[in-house]
């Protein structure tokens, strides 16, 4: 019997992806064939990668070194439980997304499809390689190929000015981030950077407090540029609506989490000894990001833009959990750190599934109804019943309703918060409950945003689109797959936590109590425990009984009335609650934050434009400063050759005089 090592399996899968991308480039002349052939195969390969991830959780860490472009710069790969977990995330999501893409891209013209197939697979390859990289050189090459491939995917519709702008902003922030990561690695690797900066040399890097803090801040900045944390999130709300739905699903579900993977590896494994202030810092950034993201998600009118802001919120929540883990770790409370970290990883996986599902669903709506602007949709539940059902599941999951998966991870996070009085430092243990209430606020507002998302687009009456068609078979199967994943993760959290055990063991040296049966008990049964299956059964029974009761008393005879008519005969669908109207309470309460401009046009339509305070407050002044500086530099550039010669002449003279 040939035993297949996880690293061989993973690298093999990545090579297959590359091969599929290249064959997509060749087969682009026959679009239908290419779609039917390449994407389902890509989905199979993703399953292979998932298998590699699962085996990596239990196998011993493995290394592979290949000759690089220079003798001293090898390509170096490794697989350990941490990368295994993220490979599972990437593989499962990519599996569903590729199925969806089979149907979604079938109408794309040949040349565009050709490019897309190559870039799509290079993007997947880049993400996989980031997870497998074992030195700074390989990591950064993979990181940049991931960024570039996703840039090209964002500008798929490159003839549109919006896409170009979104792409440029994304590329700019991505490069700033990559630069910071590179500098961080240089500090961490020290002298070994000339050998490509092997990760094994960075483990518990011997740095003093100042350099450790610098490395931490640089890498945190770099990874948060990709993760979309405040104030580096501005590319996200533009890039996601511009990209095709499967790409948005991958970017939001997997790429953001890969940035989180980078933070985990650097902070827990490389830096090792954590300073006291890092945890609170990350937690504050995360909390601000979560609140900011959800507040802006609630006022969006474009489905994909709303989801993009919601991704920012979810990354914020993951960062809160991560920050909490850093705090506990810095105080030596490894068991509690394991709980917080488990919540973060769990939420990362959940987010990949429900956000992937929602992005795919909005792609279906875009294809079916021709628009994702919520003030043109409405009543899609009648026209696309199956898509609407899957979207309902996704919406409930992201809103954090039990027994779906969003609730489980958020519950774990709150459990970790409730244990913060165990901290020896009294100020922190006093402030943390406040942060917990902030998290609860964000979660509640997320539910509000999701009610809007589903209610406006799928319920009520159709506003403009009356002839929408249901999504195709491939799309529906992909959404069904992700829905099943959401339900499974919601009902059996213990299974996942047992899988996380080796990851936590690797990161903290301490795992999580092994979960038994249907109960989820983070600390002890006396303290708190949660059983989604029993909850689900109880809820279903209660709902069923009350339905039967109401139906038997008031349900006869059956009447059908227009939805949301409130008893009045609605004259036009425009009289329903509009996406902006739904968000009015928030717009009023947080008016200074939104800087909304209201104006009525000649047709009597009332328009509200939401500003982006971070863009106005930070980026525009920065932009002005850069322009001012360039104008100053431009004075040097007069276009006269003699003047340029004079510059070099004077430089030469000064250098000569100094050198003497």
């Amino acid at each position, binding site marked *: 019997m040939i035993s297949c090592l996880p690293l061989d399996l993973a690298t093999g899968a990545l090579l297959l992806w590359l091969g599929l991308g290249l064959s997509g480039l060749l087969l682009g002349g026959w679009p239908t064939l290419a779609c039917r052939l390449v994407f389902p195969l890509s989905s199979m390969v993703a399953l292979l990668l998932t298998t590699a991830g699962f085996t990596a959780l239990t196998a011993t860490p493995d290394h592979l070194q290949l000759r690089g472009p220079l003798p001293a710069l090898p390509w170096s790969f490794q697989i350990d439980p941490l990368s295994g977990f993220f490979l599972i995330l990437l593989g499962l999501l990519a599996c569903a997304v590729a199925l969806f893409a089979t149907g979604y891209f079938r109408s794309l013209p040949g040349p565009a499809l050709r490019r897309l197939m190559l870039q799509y697979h290079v993007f997947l390859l880049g993400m996989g390689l980031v997870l497998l990289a074992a030195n700074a050189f390989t990591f950064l090459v993979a990181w940049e190929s991931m960024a570039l491939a996703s840039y090209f995917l964002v500008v798929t519709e490159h003839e549109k000015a919006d896409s170009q702008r979104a792409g440029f902003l994304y590329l700019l922030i991505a490069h700033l981030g990559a630069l910071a990561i590179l500098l961080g690695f240089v500090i961490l690797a020290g002298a070994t950077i000339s050998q490509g900066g092997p990760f094994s040399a960075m483990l518990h890097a011997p740095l003093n407090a100042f350099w450790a803090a610098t490395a931490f801040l640089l890498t945190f900045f770099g990874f948060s540029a990709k993760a979309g944390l405040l104030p580096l999130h501005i590319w996200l709300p533009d890039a996601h609506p511009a990209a095709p739905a499967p790409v948005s699903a991958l970017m939001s579900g997997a790429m953001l989490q890969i940035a989180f993977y980078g933070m985990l590896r650097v902070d827990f494994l490389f830096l090792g000894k954590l300073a006291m202030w890092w945890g609170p810092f990350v937690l504050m950034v995360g909390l601000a990001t979560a609140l900011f993201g959800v507040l802006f998600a609630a006022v969006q009118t474009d489905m994909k833009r709303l989801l993009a802001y919601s991704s920012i919120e979810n990354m914020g929540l993951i960062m809160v959990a991560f920050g909490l883990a850093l705090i506990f770790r810095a105080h030596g409370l490894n068991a509690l750190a394991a709980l917080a970290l488990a919540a973060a990883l769990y939420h990362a996986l959940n987010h990949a599934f429900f956000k992937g599902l929602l992005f795919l669903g909005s792609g279906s709506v875009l294809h079916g109804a021709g628009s994702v602007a919520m003030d043109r949709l409405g009543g899609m539940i009648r026209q696309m019943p199956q898509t609407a059902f899957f979207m309902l599941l996704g919406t409930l999951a992201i809103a954090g309703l039990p027994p779906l998966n969003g609730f489980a991870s958020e519950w774990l996070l709150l459990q970790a918060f409730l244990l913060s009085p165990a901290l020896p430092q009294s100020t922190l243990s006093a402030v943390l409950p406040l942060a917990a209430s902030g998290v609860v606020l964000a979660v509640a507002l997320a539910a509000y945003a999701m009610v809007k998302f589903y209610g406006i687009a799928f319920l009520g009456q159709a506003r403009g689109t009356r002839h929408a068609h249901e999504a195709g078979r491939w799309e529906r199967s992909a959404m069904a797959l992700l829905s099943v994943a959401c339900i499974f993760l919601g009902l059996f959290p213990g299974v996942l936590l047992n899988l996380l055990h080796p990851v936590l063991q690797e990161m903290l040296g301490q795992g999580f109590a092994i979960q038994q049966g249907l109960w989820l008990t983070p600390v002890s049964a006396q303290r708190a425990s949660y059983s989604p299956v029993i909850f689900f059964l109880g809820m279903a029974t209660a709902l069923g009984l009350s339905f039967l009761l109401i139906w038997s008393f008031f349900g006869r005879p059956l009447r059908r009335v227009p939805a949301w008519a409130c008893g009045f005969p609605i004259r036009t669908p425009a009289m329903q609650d509009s996406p902006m109207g739904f968000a009015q309470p928030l717009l009023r309460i947080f008016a200074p934050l939104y800087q909304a401009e209201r104006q009525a046009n000649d047709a009597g339509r009332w328009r509200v434009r939401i500003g982006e305070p971070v863009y106005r407050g930070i980026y525009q002044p920065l932009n002005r400063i850069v322009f001012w500086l360039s104008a100053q530099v431009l004075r040097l550039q007069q*276009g*006269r050759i003699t003047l340029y010669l004079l510059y070099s*002449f004077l430089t030469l003279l000064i250098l000569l005089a100094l050198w003497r």
Partner: protein
Amino acid sequence: MTITAQGLTWGIPLLRLLAALLLLLTFAMLAQRRLLTLIHLLAWQGMVLAAGTALVALLTGQSELWFSAALTLTLKAILIPTVLHRLLRRLQVRGDVEAVLNIPLTLLAGIALVIFAFFLAAPITALTGTVTRGMVGIALAAVLLAFLMMITRRKAISQVVGFLAIDNGLFFAATSATLGMPMVVELGVALDALIGFVILGIFFFQMRETFDSMDLQHLEQIREE
């Protein structure tokens, strides 16, 4: 490099004379208004250089320096000036070189540069033997003066002449101060100068196509705002 006693008595003063000639020629170039004369001066500079190299070859007995001297003579004293001459005729550039700075002021600046060059070369001179004392200073001064000429001229051709004069100065520094340098280095430098020359030649024609003039002022309008 050993030099015979007889060589010391007449060879070194001759080399010094050549160095002084080089500096004088560079000053003449700095003061010259007419393009044609500028090219002639460049040719003369090449001759002096070739003579200097030949003299060093004679004094030290290095056979490859003879080859180097021949190369210098053909390339720098004959070939390049001839080509420049032809360029001048084909491009029909006439008239004087318009200087950015007036000539007396340029010459004064040149004197200051020579003093600066000697000041710079003092530590090197202290290290070298008595034989080549002063050579490094003169060569450095020639380089700086040629650079100054590039700065103060407006016509593109005079920039090329300045560029070639810089190369001459460097070359002189190499041969006279150290009494000969490896052939490889020399070939490399010669190739460098030749390529620079070719590029600038193409640039001339482009410039003429575009602006119908050799005046560098026209280039000011193509900068990016």
